[in-house]
């Protein structure tokens, strides 16, 4: 696939989603990057910020199948992955696999932290393996496949926060911020009048194939060894102590309980590659890395109690890491 076509498609998708979603340009770009990198996204934000609308619009522009799963405490794994049901065909009774909503290209796992860990793990297995196993039979999920999960950071009662190991499955964790006054004004104008914006499908009918091509191209983007070393140093620097201590100063290390896993480094590089292609480049730059490291590592670094007590966030820690780790 030609990088030019990738960039055009990507830009077109951005523009179409921006017709519906006011502001959040960076959020839209990051979601698209994660999609073309083959990752899943955890969107965190208070209700009413347009998370669900964003995912819906994205699926529409992509022209791919879309399913929404509203996670509740009584949601069962079979409600997501599907189950065997007894059916009678031509006088013969047999079990037939009934696919759950996970079998879609774009899946919105709304308020994923409201479901029980058992149900959450069913989704997370599907995210990682891109297949589900029901009664011993494995069923492959369609490609491309992306899960966009949302969670509310303020309502913690009756929720089951995702464990660290499962958080690691998400490629990016994106924070959905409240709109700025100008953006809010634009939102009101678009949603309270008679006119309604509609998104059009960007990808052709065989959109899945195009997406797969784009995903392949993204992995071919070149990255210079010094930049690769930089990513390694950055991720290595998140390790709090021991031989993996890295060059971090104690002022940062004292807040970290667990550093990033290798998946974090993978996410940084793939995200940087996606960003490079989106900017019509076929190589990764230092700026791409630094622009990607925050969503890629913020849910992979676990802070300790001291950081919590001092209101230190992972974003602050990562920002300090970027400052302290030299490029060369």
């Amino acid at each position, binding site marked *: 696939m030609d*990088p030019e076509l990738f960039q055009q498609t990507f830009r077109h998708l951005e523009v179409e989603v921006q017709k519906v979603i006011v502001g959040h340009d960076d959020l839209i770009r990051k979601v698209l990057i994660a999609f073309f990198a083959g990752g899943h996204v955890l969107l965190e934000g208070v209700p009413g910020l347009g998370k669900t609308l964003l995912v819906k619009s994205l699926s529409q522009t992509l022209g791919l199948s879309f399913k929404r799963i509203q996670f509740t405490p009584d949601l069962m794994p079979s409600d997501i992955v599907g189950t065997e049901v007894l059916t009678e065909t031509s006088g013969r009774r047999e079990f037939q696999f009934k696919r759950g909503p996970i079998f879609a290209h774009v899946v919105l796992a709304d308020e994923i932290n409201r479901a029980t860990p058992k149900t959450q793990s069913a989704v997370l297995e599907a995210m990682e393996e891109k297949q589900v196993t029901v009664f011993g039979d494995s069923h492959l999920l369609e490609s491309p496949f992306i899960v966009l999960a949302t969670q509310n950071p303020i309502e913690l009662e009756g929720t089951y926060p995702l464990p660290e190991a499962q958080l690691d499955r998400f490629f990016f964790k994106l924070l959905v911020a409240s709109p700025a006054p100008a953006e809010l004004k634009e939102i009101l104008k678009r949603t309270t009048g008679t006119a309604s914006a509609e998104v059009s499908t960007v990808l052709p009918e065989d959109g899945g194939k195009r997406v797969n091509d784009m995903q392949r191209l993204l992995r071919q983007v*070149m*990255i*210079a060894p*010094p930049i690769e070393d930089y990513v390694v140093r950055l991720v290595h620097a998140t390790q709090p102590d021991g031989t993996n201590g890295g060059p971090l100063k104690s002022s940062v290390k004292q807040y970290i309980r667990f550093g990033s896993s290798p998946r974090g480094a993978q996410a940084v590089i793939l995200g940087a590659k996606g960003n490079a292609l989106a900017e019509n480049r*076929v*190589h990764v730059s230092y*700026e791409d890395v630094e622009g990607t490291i925050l969503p890629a590592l913020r849910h992979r670094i676990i802070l300790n109690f001291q950081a919590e007590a001092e209101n230190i966030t992972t974003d602050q820690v990562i920002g300090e890491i970027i400052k302290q780790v030299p490029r*060369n």
Partner: protein
Amino acid sequence: MFVPPAAAMIYVIALFFRATWLSQNVAVLVVVFIVVLGALAVLLRRRPPIASVRSAARLVDLRSGAQDHFLTLATIDPATQPVSLIARLRRQAEWFRNRVDLKRDFPYRLKRSAYWSFGGSLAAAILIHLLLVLGLPGRDTGAGPERLRELARQMALKPELRELANELDALAARLDDPQISAEEKHVLAQQIEKKIAEQQKNQEQKDNRDLLAQAASALSQQEQQQASSGQQQGERQKGAGSIQTNAPQEGQGENKQTQASGGDGQGDLNAQLSQGMDAGKSKQPGQDQNRSGDAKNNRGQPEPNQPGTDPKKEKPGKTQGGSKEGAGQQQASAEPPPQVGPPAERFYKAGEGKEGLKGAGYVTVQLPEEVVADASGESRATKESKNNRIRTQVPVSNVPLPTHVPNAPTEKQPVPIEYRSIIR
């Protein structure tokens, strides 16, 4: 960065060598040492003259805003990358290359340390040169033996002056000889000067007369230099602890002498020891030496500044009024008075005339049975030490100073230097 300091040091060594402060061997050794040291420093601080491709590419990226195009091109292995992407990257890099202007983006600049090194070395060399030329004129030998040799060479060309030229050349060699004393050099130079003067009278040719005049002038200049350097040496020796000095004394002790010279109308000379006097005198190392000499001769003399001194241990009759027993029986010190000049000329303060202390070098001191100093009957030292319960008996005189009697008998004694400021 290391070249300017090394060059400056070599220049300074050359200056020292010219000034004959360093022998040839030492100068060569030092120069070799400096060169080796400089070479070592260069080797240790050596960096590759050409930057690595990676760092150069990074620099070009920064200058042209190429977002790591050149870095990627310089560091990736093209064989492992898709050809189409490599070609695209090259095309993009080509576009960015046109934005780079080598002269504008990479101007050749010397490092700041190089400027400092050059400036500092130059300043140091100039400073040392000026110090040598201005501060130490006696060392400027440019017009010395070399000049004489040059004149000798010129004179040797003239048959009638050849003999004198040989003598002048020999004199220059002797002037260079450090084993020959300055006096001997002076004598030799004067002999040649006489010969030159005689030759000048006999010469009729103007050229020859000029040449002889130049030689005479060079000789006299050489003598002046020697004289001035000898004087400087003498002054240095004096400053380093010469015994004989006529320098006016300063200090508290002399203030008291000023009072004495002013007179209180009684004409008494009360010899008192005071701490201030010693403080005033201690500034002159030569005098300290004198004092120590006196102390040897006048052993047992009380020393108020030394708390450990016990006046009771003094030997009666041998002190200079240090005890009651010795009062009135003072004996002249065995040490002869200083022979440099009359004491009055040596010790009067600035502003005092000779007449003020004329004949004060030798005073006859008659000490009474009891120590009576002033109206209260106590000497100053006694007052000061009363509270400390150390009652120092100091020599005090209340007898008017008689006229100077030549060939005075045993009472005649020299005034030690320590006493000169306590006479009032």
